């Protein structure tokens, strides 16, 4: 059923049964005239409103979405609205990065007795949406041509190849602990000298295969949940360790089950840029690391790759080269200059207006193959076989390969990572078509930091995750005025 063409816009309301649905009833009983655009979906509590319902509505043609719940402290279920407030505020600050105007989404609190206020809200929200006009749709956007020019941020520390890392000491340490462990996860040489593959060390001979250096790009924490309940060791870079911390925090691995081996990391290579530099090649002749650069000879041709130019962006911004904590740490964390630089993927989007962002995503996401490599590489994607993206019950997505479905999956991933993503960047690295999807996670992480006292995931296994808690009086969330 279409909206009244030219007269009405599509506005969806999610109202809690106890207060806000009641206020709409009260307004009705008082014959408080309202615009007719709004369609109300009754839910038990504002806490039941999964932000993804709102994203789904907005991606699929809603021009505006309004969520209303009981006033803080008046929740029929004690605290549902307190959780809703945090999650919906995160959503509100996430929408613009997709290119969706956050004015099209609002959440508010209203009690069952406030019929007149409800009338004012509906009227003002409807007027607001009419002023904005029909929402532009991703499928109609003109894809932005390939965007270039992500400037590299300055590095927070000198980068290197890790040539002098005490690898032998590490191997010795692993061998000592190995008898008590099912296995130890690390890296080994891959199909050629410029690639590594995961290594599962079970016997001392396996340990000799362990490598350390700029090619250890993959995050071994992704394998950890598979060993749940078993004693296991893991070799980590600083960034990997933050994923381990998150898994500990979420009880997906037990602290007593995991032994952490760590070396200070000097940075790893951005493989897409290495590939670009080396070009097409058949044989890797030789790989030599000196302290600050990697010299790769392929097909007889020598390439010099200074770490300072070829390291991953996340290494340039890294504040934690050494593991958050480790059972067998070898070496000290180097001095790091703590500077907050907006990651280039996000800075690029920050510089665009909403229309440009929509066009950008429309262009980028069209290339998505729905291969889910991003999901499979993510150490925090613990649902595995039960990801909601390909289940029937609940059936969040269809199998159509259109822009909205593809983008919706990215929104699901990003919002499921709210307060959990450590920014390891594996999703983006794994993408076979190179879509800069990390920006969406970065925006969520930035929002969580802004709203919840600079909270950053992966530093404290005992921390209370911000989206699984609340404050009665939120420090950084202000109720918006209704006019």
């Amino acid at each position, binding site marked *: 059923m279409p909206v009244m063409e030219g007269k009405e816009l599509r506005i969806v309301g999610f109202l809690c049964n106890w207060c806000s*649905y009641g206020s709409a*009833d009260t307004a009705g009983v008082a014959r408080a005239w309202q615009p007719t655009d709004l369609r*109300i*979906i009754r839910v038990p509590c504002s806490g039941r409103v999964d932000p993804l319902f709102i994203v789904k509505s907005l991606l699929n*043609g809603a021009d505006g979405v309004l969520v209303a719940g009981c006033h803080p402290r008046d929740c029929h279920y004690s605290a*549902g609205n307190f959780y809703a407030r945090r999650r919906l505020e995160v959503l509100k600050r996430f929408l613009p990065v997709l290119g969706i105007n956050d004015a099209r989404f609002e959440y508010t609190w209203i009690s069952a007795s406030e019929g007149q206020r409800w009338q004012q809200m509906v009227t003002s929200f409807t007027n607001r949406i009419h002023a904005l006009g029909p929402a532009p749709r991703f499928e109609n956007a003109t894809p932005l041509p390939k965007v270039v020019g992500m400037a590299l941020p300055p590095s927070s520390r000198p980068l290197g190849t890790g040539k002098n890392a005490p690898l032998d000491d590490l191997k010795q340490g692993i061998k000592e602990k190995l008898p008590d462990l099912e296995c130890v996860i690390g890296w080994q040489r891959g199909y050629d000298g410029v690639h590594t593959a995961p290594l599962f060390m079970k016997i001392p001979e396996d340990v000799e295969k362990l490598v350390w250096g700029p090619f250890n790009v993959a995050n071994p924490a992704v394998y950890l949940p598979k060993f749940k309940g078993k004693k296991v060791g893991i070799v980590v870079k600083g960034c990997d360790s933050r994923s381990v911390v998150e898994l500990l925090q979420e009880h997906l691995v037990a602290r007593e089950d995991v032994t952490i081996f760590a070396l200070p990391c000097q940075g790893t290579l951005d493989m897409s840029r290495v590939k670009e530099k080396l070009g097409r090649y058949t044989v890797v002749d030789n790989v030599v690391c000196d302290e600050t650069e990697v010299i790769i000879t392929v097909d007889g041709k020598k390439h010099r790759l200074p770490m300072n130019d070829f390291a991953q962006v996340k290494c340039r911004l890294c504040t934690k080269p050494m593991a958050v904590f480790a059972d067998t740490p070898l070496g000290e964390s180097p001095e790091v200059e703590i500077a907050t630089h907006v990651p280039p993927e996000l800075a690029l989007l920050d510089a665009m207006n909403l229309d440009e962002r929509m066009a950008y995503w429309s262009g980028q996401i069209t290339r998505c193959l729905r291969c889910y490599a991003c999901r499979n590489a993510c150490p925090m994607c613990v649902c595995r076989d039960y990801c909601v993206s390909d289940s029937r019950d609940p059936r969040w997505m269809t199998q159509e390969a259109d822009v909205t479905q593809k983008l919706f999956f990215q929104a699901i991933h990003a919002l499921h990572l709210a307060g959990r993503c450590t920014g390891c960047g594996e999703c983006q690295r794994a993408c076979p078509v190179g879509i800069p999807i990390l920006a969406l996670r970065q925006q969520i992480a930035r929002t969580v930091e802004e709203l919840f006292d600079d909270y950053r995931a992966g530093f404290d296994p005992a921390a209370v995750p911000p989206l699984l808690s609340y404050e009665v009086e939120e420090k950084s969330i202000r109720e918006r005025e209704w006019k």
Partner: protein
Amino acid sequence: MRIGVFICHCGSNIAGTVDCTKVAEIAKKFPDVVYTAEPMYTCAEPGQTAMEDAIHEYRLDGVVVASCSPRMHEATFRRTVERAGLNRYMFEMANIREHVSWIGKEKDANTNKAAELVEIAVAKLRNNRPLTAKTFDVTKKVLIAGGGVAGIQSALDCADGGVPVILVERESTIGGKMAKLDKTFPTVDCSACILGPKMVDVAQHPNITLHAYSEIEDVSGYVGNFSVKIRKLATYVDWEKCTGCGVCSEKCPSKKTPDAFNEFTGTTTAVSISFPQAIPKKAVINARHCRQLTKGKCGVCAKFCPTGAIDYAMQDSIVTEEVGCIIAATGYDLMDWTVYREYGGGAYPDVITSLQYERLLSSSGPTGGHLIRPSDGGEPQNVVFVQCVGSRDKSIGRPQCSAFCCMYTAKQAVLTKEHLPESQSYVFYMDIRAPGKMYDEFTRRAMEEYGVEYIRGRVSAIYPDGLGQYVVMGSDTLLGEPVEIKADLVVLAVGIEAARGTRALAEKLRISYDKSGFFMESHVKLKPVETNTAGVFLAGVCQGAKDIPASVAQGSAAAAKVMALFARDKLENNPQIAFVDLRRCVGCGKCIRCCPFGAIKEKDIRGETKAQVIETVCQGCGLCTSTCPQGAAQLSHATDNQILAEVNALCR
């Protein structure tokens, strides 16, 4: 599915601005809809009968009624479809009256909107599943938190009704604030004389177990089956042995212990019984002032105690009680009035609170009922009462009225005249709130018979004049003039707030509280005793300001609620609760962390940790469902698929 849709005209209430026939026509085209009808009044008996008939005749297995708000008639129609043999949850409503016909002016738009609301309802119904309630046993025992007059009344009523009662009181005696009062309005009878017998009844009732000097440590479980941990604070006196003879107190050398029972108007001993009529009449050692406990030498009380009850090594202990219901009757405290710097902020000895004044008037108080100025012990000539100190004051965030100050102020002014016939009392007030039986007559008597001077206006400042008196700067808005009175004693009618610790208790009981900390009732008008947590009831001022008769009435009301619940041997749960798809659950515990009711627990299933919903505790908010990333936790009747069906009906 075979769905029937009923578009109610509600007389002209809906049909006046919605083309119901057209809505029915459109609805016929929705998937699975096999029947539509347009009853005049669906909720009326003929309407309901027609619905039942249609269900049989057209073999309907789901029904949508488009009419008024589900908050009005959902329960009615659920019973109707149940009578016709359907599960009551195979039913949905579209609210086309309050949300359409009564608020939209244009018939076209209304009709279109109504049809869409029906479409949403049909879309959801197609995802509905039959749900059935489960039954469970009830522990027929009640725990009452707070032994003030409300809690005492609840305890006695429940106990008389045959329900075993666990009464928990934080102080060393029950009686609450009422025990501190000298007289009560409007009859001016002695507070201790009317409360005393009730307190004795509590002590003697075979169905009541009293835990005084105890606090609630933890609450788990659900209606019918709560488990409450009670922390019995160390009294350093073995109450099994203590006879309440008072020798310890007589001999105690630490005589300058602040006397909390007397609102710090006097001092007491480190070991003491708070007042002569205390229940239980047992001694308690104040650990902060006991020489033995602070300095390690003294031991006088232990030496003199005839029964050897003193135990300096006593520790807190925990007892656990299993109960079916809990009544919160935790009362109030006075707000911290020292924020009023313009009244001296507590620095002036003769500017006191009304509760302190009660102790000065009381014959069991520090002065033996002799009304004197705290500063010099002289009899006050001019006594000024200031009302609304900490009430009705937005500037300090307390906009609410404390409800009973007007009346006790009048009473105190009357008592002042009775104690000191030569004295003159003045009352600064904003409005006299005396709506109870014989209340207004009482305030009139204060003015007419006792010569109390009532002055309508707030007091801007109070300061000592340097010569022993206090200047009270007020105004008389009726006269239209500022007014100054030189007072010997100033009594502030200090506003109330929820008792200290109320918020922590609310968290344990999983009930809500308002801005001032008072517990939230389930419905302001129609459920003033219930809370939103089944099996937890409220009595007395902890729910909001009220006087003694209202507290007693609510105490009895809470008892009635308990007994009504216990009249059944088994309870039924609401089937609109969460469940966990065990295959999907990865045991991350996010749902457990944020469930407001503690209704999800970890369970080991074949070596794997999974989440499990405690069906009797879950209240059906659905927070777990929107928290679970893999969609394993689902709220019955509001599952992801049901809501997605509604979203998809609107946005595509």
